[in-house]
């Protein structure tokens, strides 16, 4: 079988019944079938009985196709879409506590915060805690730049995504 070997990151959006068993089934699917999952984000939608799960998974085209199909088999799942190649809004929230023992470091962090449109949300004698929202590349780039200063602690939410309205489609009414 012709399997393309580019293991790129795919961003998959799933609409699912807001039931305790539903999330468990989705997570178990990844472990039982040996799929790799990079991040997973869950929250309810405009309809509180429906949750949106956004997951980032790595794999070749065949694996991703299987993940999408296996997700669709789950009884509580409404819709599954691979958003990777869609025009989409794609955001991640980062909270990071950075060492700023010297005035130079404080100044450098503030400069980066301004450039990236981030915000300092908590301050102590020798740390700044910064919040940044952006796409994955922005968050990665920011982290790369502040790394030399020393990261005390950080938390990332994983990505959430939605198809752009301009693109002329919403999540799609059809469950393929």
């Amino acid at each position, binding site marked *: *079988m*012709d399997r393309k070997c580019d293991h790129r990151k795919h961003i998959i959006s799933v609409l*699912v*019944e807001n039931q305790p*068993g539903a999330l*468990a*089934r989705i997570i*178990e699917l990844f472990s*039982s079938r040996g799929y790799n999952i990079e991040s997973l984000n869950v929250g309810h939608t405009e309809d509180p009985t429906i949750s949106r799960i956004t997951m980032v998974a790595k794999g070749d085209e*065949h694996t991703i*196709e*299987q993940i999408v*199909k*296996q997700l*669709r*088999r789950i*009884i*509580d*799942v*409404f819709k599954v879409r691979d958003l990777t190649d869609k025009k989409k809004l794609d955001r991640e929230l980062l909270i990071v506590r950075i060492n700023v023992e010297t005035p130079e470091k404080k100044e450098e962090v503030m400069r980066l915060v301004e450039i990236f449109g981030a915000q300092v949300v908590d301050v102590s004698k020798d740390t700044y805690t910064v919040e940044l929202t952006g796409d994955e590349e922005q968050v990665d780039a920011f982290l790369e730049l502040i790394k030399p200063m020393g990261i005390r602690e950080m938390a990332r939410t994983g990505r959430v995504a939605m198809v752009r309205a301009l693109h002329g489609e919403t999540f799609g009414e059809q*469950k393929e």
Partner: protein
Amino acid sequence: MKLSGAEILLRALELEGVEKIFGYPGGAVLDIYDRLPFTPLKHYLTRHEQGAAHAADGYARVTGKVGVCFATSGPGATNLVTGLATAQIDSVPVVAFTGNVPTFMIGNDAFQEVDTVGITRPITKHNFLVKDVKDLADTVKKAFHIARTGRPGVVLVDLPKDVTRELTDFFEEEYKTPVQIRSYKPVLKGHPGQIKRAAKAIASAERPILYIGGGVVSSGASDLVVKMAEVANIPMAATLMGLTAVPGNHPFFLGMLGMHGTYAANMAIQESDLIIAIGARFDDRVTGKLSEFAPNAKVIHIDIDSAEIGKNRHADIPIVGDAKLVMEELLPEVEKQVAKNREFYAAREKWILKVRSWKERYPLWYEPSDRVIKPQFVIEKIWEVTKGEAIITTDVGQHQMWVAQYYKFRFPRQLVTSGGLGTMGFGVPAAIGAKVGRPDKTVFCISGDGSFQMNMQEIVTAVHYNIPIKVAIINNGFLGMVRQWQGIFYQKNYSQVHLDVQPDFVKLVEAMGGVGLRATKPAEVEAVLKEAMAIDDRPVVIDFIVDREEDVFPMVPPGGALHEMILPNYGKKKEKKAV
């Protein structure tokens, strides 16, 4: 009127058309069992919960209805697990109800508490934990709907004890309205464009082959598939699960394909230019080495489960839908196309002749003996004595493969066997379920001495309810299939496969209240089978002492391509390797 959860459950089962239940009581299901005698539901007390699950499974496989089993919490639920996994992987509709500790004790490691829905999640199509008696009726309704529609499967409903005790309103009329599950809408009808493309491909292929799976049997598409083979001159090969879709003596039928498939079936699939896979999933036991499986074939893949399409083998023409509904559309299209493409008939004729020559040249074969009983000979004799019309259940191992090879089935749902999971201990309880479901048929469990010992306690269940199943133990004093592999691939290093120490099965069965018989010589086989056939009020077990080291051939070595099968050494000739 207010009913208790237990009463609602039992009434709902009646409304679902349930007549038979296999189960085992316990603390958490006391309220259900308290009400059970006041219903028309017939309950069979198995001697182990695993037996209940297999019996429900066997019942479902022969009737096409949903099988139902009950078990209590904790060990009751965990004992069901093997049975449910067996049914799920073979797409059998079963609904299991388990008791659990009261809702306020869940998560406390209470007595006989396990996380049943957690444990069974990977082995069910869906499962539910009912936390409020008001949700019970709706949940039962959904459970049956999910189990029997789409790709059939197992649904488990976990019932905390307080839910079965509490009272609530139950409206029968409301229960009878159609089920709505907004996130579950299986695709049943095939895409018309794809069906047209498939018909064209079928009419223009030179070397097509039908690859028939269990989905053909479960959707009731057998007749349509056979008709298509006849209309378009297509040889047929079936999987273990699909064997009964085609009459065993059909001239276009090549038998089973795969690891222990026939030479003709395996060669035909390898050399085909078009595989029409229906209700089959390109399992590793079928394809052998996947990269060398049917290298020149295009694939039409018809399956109700879109996740099966393209999972193991790329499908050139995928059709998602119920096999029967798709065949109802596809058959007339193929008829039209075939009428247009007369010239392909000639090429097709050549193909059929080639396939037949394989069948004649390398048939299934074993060396007969008048000294020791050959296991294959027992299967042939059972076929003769039952006129090929018995429902056969099997356990797992060599005897299972010999059944697949030598029992020529006549009608769909005639074979009940654990194909996907390969569960030893399945045969006896499944035979009980099958006989309960089809009391009009002779039900013969063909087992091995290893497998029989895994659930032989269920003979007592058969005695208890006067269920006259027949059991043939193909007794070679070995775990035969494991021994065969150790023999061929591990230089005869027979490790932990000797079953020399075993009970006297005749005495054992007599002690359980059944009839025990034995045959040790070929000349005794027919007489003992006839004796068994004459018994119709209790189970009978025949201990056939067979040739100890007979192997199952043909055999595709693990990791090998289908055409690399090892053949029997026909008439003491040197072992032939197919080319």
